[in-house]
């Protein structure tokens, strides 16, 4: 029989998490509660004696100084309502797993199969609340019905039943479901229905290609020899659907596109990826010659570049949008621990050194009701924030860079970009660290977590829009500790040379990881019989496709397998032999002695027909000019308070950004450690002054005018940010993450061709700027269906490109922060300001449409960036800050208040073209501009380095704590206290 141990804080100990919930109930739901207390519940479904339970409740599961516990009975206390939230069956219960380990150790009893510990949490609510209010806070704040279950009791019912009744969320199932044979000899209509009903997301063309393959006589003959039916098995079709999914094959980026721009002649683009992304990288690498830093691009889980002679840098950014829309906490947590495995599984395995996260949300202060099936953006924001906090902090990886972007259209799908870098020895066991290859005869090992139904069809699901019935199995809860144990073990295994090849189990699970690795040898024989399951009842295809987290797949030489298993055991990591890699030409899967899938390797990986798509793009002209502002000081304060500009300290503080002791330029800088750093600088080797800058650019607003410039500006912003902090513009590498709205035209999606046209334009912008700057793209990812269709209404995100970048900082001494340092320092503006106000934060603030979208002039900017880097290297620069959202006005205000100093500037002196209005000069978002400050005695040297470039001294840093700006007419237009400006900037998102 199961027993419940309920743990609460003793009187006199502040319940800080309870107080936080109380605060959130008030701020998010507008309901005032007197008091919220939290209790933890352990439901132990194992044959334990009363004495054992008492030991657990008396010491093992509690902290005796601050907690007390009760067994199977009510733990007194005053409250009006109790809400208990537990997990649904099959949802990962990390605390339950840890509790079970402790219980097994303390009692000496090993749990039998099926025995387990389940955790839940009680919220004790006091205050004159109605049941309706309690139910509202339960459904809108305390629990998520997709993964959790909740019980609401009033105090009287609670006393009557002596606590909450025991309930065990155990997965119950019988036997292992059979393998099914599926005939494809059907009408087109039936084939389409089959693909849809089984969540395969295969098009009719693709279904035809599969059917043709199975009709081949040589295939039939082979199948007969292996004792398989002529028709495909469900296992085979699931593997094909997964391998051919948009998520894995990037069908849209590889499609043949018939593209028409304005009234021009249509042209054919065969693969956006090959043409523009890989294409740009090829041109850049060829031009760089010996200075090329790329080691491994586009072929592994992450890109690899040279850091120095002995070390390589690995970098990857992923998105986890759809799961985060359904369960923000679990989705984001899985996003971060999932992307961790990409660099970890790159080359022979990299040690992880930092994370970078960028989120896009609708306003958390949204007042209008949220459509059914979507969560309020405030809840999404808080869940995502916490998921990434737990994923990053518990993994011991510092989160050193990121940003949060707001736009109402992210209501339909939030974007959750998670990135991770790793450090890889340049040479491991006499082989280049970035190379790996499975060898025929190697054993297939799966390592780490167990397999459950979690995440099944995640790869195909993310290739679909969200709808009311989106499956809960798409959501998983990551487990950073299981993963940490696994990575600790695998780094040791790497150093002992115990494996030939490593990759992660992400989208598509074993099907994908083993299928890809089998390309090295030309086949595999995978046996699922011993596959470790979380619970019984999984069909073979489910075992293959499960996206259960914290798992890696390795190719281990047969003679190292014994040591590999022994080492895994020592680290308490599960490692299971699942067959071998071979050169048979077949992806063969068996289960309990029978073959359940036999797929020709060549067809699996090369058989997908290329998609053909239509794209068109039409330039639009909107005009409109806002009135001049009445009060420049108030306007500046309002601009600083805009969601896309204001302080994000609330996030940054809750992310460990200093673990590993390498954060030499932190995300928060300045006199009071709260200024917004342009980028982070990280010193990955404790005994070397060499460092890496990490930055990003993201400008989705500009997509409303032209995605070409949106992409160009994103690349420029990333480069500019990195240059500002001291990175060498000639030693950088980039990474593109496209998040788009559905670009395939159909009846439901009538402007699909335009969205694809926007994608073409964005790729062209990316190509042009990357080639001009000499920035290779080393890896990337796309997420193409960021739409929600709720009750027939489509909400599409603005087309969004995140461009992430790593750059070499030769010596940490020459890394620069953005805060003004000393009164008397000279302030310079670098770069020409033009009338680039279209889709700017300023135009949004005043509600103006039209205007010219910001446009990059690559050669002009590159000359400036190189000169700035020389000035930084020469030690001329005291502070440097880039002008981006909110332009020059926001930039100087931030540098001033972050330095706790004032400044006096004359706008007239700034380099500019065709600008006659102060507000335009202050808030234009022309890319390629920076504001630097320096000691007066460095001015001569600095000006010499900058000669011939659009650079001008515009003023001085002052002791007086005011920002004073003289307008074009020479009159003072702004004279504001930096405290007022800072407060306007700090406040909005101090949640």
């Amino acid at each position, binding site marked *: 029989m199961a027993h419940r141990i309920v743990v609460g804080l003793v009187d006199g100990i502040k319940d800080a998490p309870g107080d936080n919930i109380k605060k959130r109930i008030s701020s998010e739901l507008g309901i005032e509660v007197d008091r919220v207390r939290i209790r933890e519940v352990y439901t132990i479904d194992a044959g334990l004696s009363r004495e054992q339970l008492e030991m657990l409740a008396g010491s093992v599961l509690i902290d005796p100084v601050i907690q007390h516990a009760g067994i199977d009975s009510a733990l007194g206390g005053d409250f009006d309502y109790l809400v208990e939230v537990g997990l649904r069956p099959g949802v990962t219960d990390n*605390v339950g797993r840890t509790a079970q380990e402790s219980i097994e150790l303390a009692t000496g009893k090993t749990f039998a199969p099926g025995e387990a510990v389940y955790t839940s949490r009680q919220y004790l609510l006091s205050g004159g609340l109605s049941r309706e209010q309690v139910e509202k806070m339960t459904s809108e704040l305390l629990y998520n019905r997709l993964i959790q279950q909740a019980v609401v009791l009033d105090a009287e019912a609670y006393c009557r039943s002596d606590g909450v009744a025991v309930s065990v969320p155990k997965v119950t199932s019988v036997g292992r479901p059979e393998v099914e044979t599926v005939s494809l000899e059907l009408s087109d209509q039936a084939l389409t229905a089959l693909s849809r009903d089984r969540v395969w997301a295969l098009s009719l063309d693709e279904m035809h290609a599969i059917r043709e393959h199975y009709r081949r006589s040589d295939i039939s003959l082979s199948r007969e020899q292996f004792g398989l039916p002529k028709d495909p098995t469900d296992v085979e079709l699931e593997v094909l659907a997964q391998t051919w999914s948009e998520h894995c094959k990037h069908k849209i980026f590889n499609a043949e596109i018939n593209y028409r721009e304005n009234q021009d002649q249509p042209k054919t683009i065969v693969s956006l990826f090959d043409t523009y992304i890989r294409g740009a990288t090829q041109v850049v690498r060829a031009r760089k010659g010996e200075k090329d830093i790329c080691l491994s691009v586009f072929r592994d889980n992450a890109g690899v570049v040279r850091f120095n002679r002995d070390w390589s840098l690995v970098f990857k950014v992923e998105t986890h949008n759809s799961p985060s829309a359904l369960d923000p906490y679990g989705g984001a947590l899985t996003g971060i621990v999932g992307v961790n495995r990409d660099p970890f599984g790159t080359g022979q395995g990299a040690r992880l050194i930092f994370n970078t996260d960028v989120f896009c949300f609708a306003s958390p202060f949204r007042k209008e009701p949220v459509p059914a099936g979507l969560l309020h953006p405030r809840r999404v924001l808080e869940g995502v924030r916490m998921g990434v*906090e737990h994923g990053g902090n518990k993994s011991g990886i510092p989160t050193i860079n990121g940003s949060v972007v707001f736009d109402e259209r992210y209501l339909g799908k939030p974007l959750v970009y998670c990135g991770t870098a790793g450090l890889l020895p340049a040479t491991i066991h006499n082989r280049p660290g970035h190379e790996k290859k499975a060898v025929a005869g190697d054993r297939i090992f799966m390592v780490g977590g167990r397999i459950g139904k979690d995440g099944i069809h995640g790869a195909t699901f993310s290739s679909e829009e969200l709808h009311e019935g989106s499956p809960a199995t798409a959501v998983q809860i990551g487990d950073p500790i299981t993963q940490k144990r696994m990575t*600790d073990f695998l780094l040791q295994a790497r150093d002992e040379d115990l494996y030939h090849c490593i990759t992660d189990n992400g989208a598509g699970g074993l099907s994908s990881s083993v299928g890809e690795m089998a390309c090295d040898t030309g086949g595999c024989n995978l046996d699922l019989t011993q596959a470790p399951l979380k619970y019984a009842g999984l069909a073979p295809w489910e075992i293959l496709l499960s996206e259960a987290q914290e798992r890696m797949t390795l190719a281990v030489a047969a003679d190292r397998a014994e040591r590999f298993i022994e080492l895994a055991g020592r680290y308490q990591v599960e490692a299971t032999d699942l067959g071998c890699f071979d050169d048979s030409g077949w992806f063969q899967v068996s289960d309990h002695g029978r073959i359940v899938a036999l797929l020709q390797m060549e067809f699996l990986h090369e058989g997908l027909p290329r998609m053909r798509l239509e794209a068109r793009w039409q330039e639009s002209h909107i005009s409109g000019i806002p009135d001049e502002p009445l009060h420049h000081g108030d306007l500046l304060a309002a601009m600083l308070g805009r969601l896309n500009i204001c302080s994000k300290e609330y996030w940054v503080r809750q992310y460990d950004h200093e673990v590993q002791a390498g954060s030499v330029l932190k995300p928060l800088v300045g006199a009071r450690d709260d200024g917004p750093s342009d980028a982070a600088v990280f010193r990955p080797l404790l005994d070397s002054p060499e460092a890496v800058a990490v930055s990003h650019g993201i400008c989705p607003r500009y997509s409303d005018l032209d995605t070409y410039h949106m992409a160009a500006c994103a690349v420029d912003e990333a480069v500019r940010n990195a240059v500002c902090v001291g990175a060498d513009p000639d030693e950088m590498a980039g990474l593109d993450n496209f998040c788009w709205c559905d670009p395939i035209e159909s009846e439901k999606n009538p402007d699909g061709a335009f969205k694809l046209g926007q994608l073409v334009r964005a790729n062209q912008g990316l190509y042009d700027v990357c080639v001009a700057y000499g920035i290779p793209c080393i890896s990337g990812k796309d997420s193409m269906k960021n739409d929600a269709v709720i009750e027939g209404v489509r909400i599409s995100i603005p087309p969004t490109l995140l461009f992430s970048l790593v750059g070499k900082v030769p010596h940490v001494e020459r890394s620069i922060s953005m805060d003004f340092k000393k009164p008397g320092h000279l302030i310079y503006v670098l770069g020409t300001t033009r009338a680039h106000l279209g889709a700017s934060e300023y135009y949004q603030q005043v509600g103006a449409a039209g205007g010219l979208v910001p446009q990059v002039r690559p050669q002009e900017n590159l000359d400036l960036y190189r000169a700035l880097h020389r000035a930084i290297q020469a030690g001329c620069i005291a502070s440097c800050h880039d002008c981006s959202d909110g332009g020059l006005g926001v930039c100087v205000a931030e540098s001033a208040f972050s330095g706790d100093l004032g400044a006096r500037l004359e706008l007239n002196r700034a380099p500019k073209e065709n600008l006659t209005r102060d507000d335009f000069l202050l808030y234009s978002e022309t890319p390629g501009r920076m504001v630097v400050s320096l000691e007066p005695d460095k001015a001569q040297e600095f000006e010499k380095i900058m000669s011939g470039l659009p650079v001008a001294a515009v003023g001085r840093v002052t002791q007086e704590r005011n920002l004073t700006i003289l307008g074009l007419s020479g009159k003072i237009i702004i004279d504001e206290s930096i405290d007022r400006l800072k407060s306007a900037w700090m406040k909005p998102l101090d949640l």
Partner: protein
Amino acid sequence: MSSVRVLVLSGNGTNCERETAFACKSAGADVVDVAPIWDVVAGDKRLGDYQFLCLPGGFMDGDDLGSAKACANRIHYTPIVGTRVKLWDELLAFVDSGKLVLGICNGFQLLVKLGLLPRLDGGFPKQVASLTFNDSGRFENRWVELGCDPKSPCVFTRGIESLPVPVRHGEGKFVVADKEVLSRLESAHLVPVRYIDPDTRKATQSYPANPNGSVDGVAGICDPSGRVFGLMPHPECYLTKYDHPRWRRTPEPSEEGRGLKLFHNAIEWLKAS
């Protein structure tokens, strides 16, 4: 002068072992081994072979039963393979043999939950204090200023007046089982480091200078011998001047980070004894 051997114990979610080991090495330790606790369980590493045990920061077991609690259980109940000796017995023997123990953040939480700190009577360890949720209810990463008690017997803080260091925790609020524990800690000077107000230089209860609401500004405590010391902030994250958030504004006193001083003190003490 004897050779100084340090063991930095890792695993199950510790994450500061590399920089902690680097700090020990930089401070002059002769041998610094980073080993997962499982190597001690397997008998491959023996605590008795070392003079200085570092329990580094991290998120052991994900803080799942409360910070460091699951690891305290592990230490209490896991036998060394092939013996009847528990990890706990080996750890207690190490502590009682006059050697040094430093627990940082998660390692400090572990020492307190095992009752090895403050261990006022020096008898069998019993937990009399704890570290619980920050008053803010949040994990926070921020730099704070520590003031040191010059009268403390603590080996690690000798000669240090004050120290800027980062905190990075969600459960760092020091609480005691009863008032007597606190008064005994104070009278015996077993609180070597307190959060201080950077202006008044006095111990403070006000946020954020005291980042978690710890009673009496307690940032760390030692045992009466001064050999066992734990603290919430991270001195191992201040190895060079570049680690300080404001080195670009205010000149640092030395290239070497001030956090290293704690480790120098430990190594020097061991070399002298």
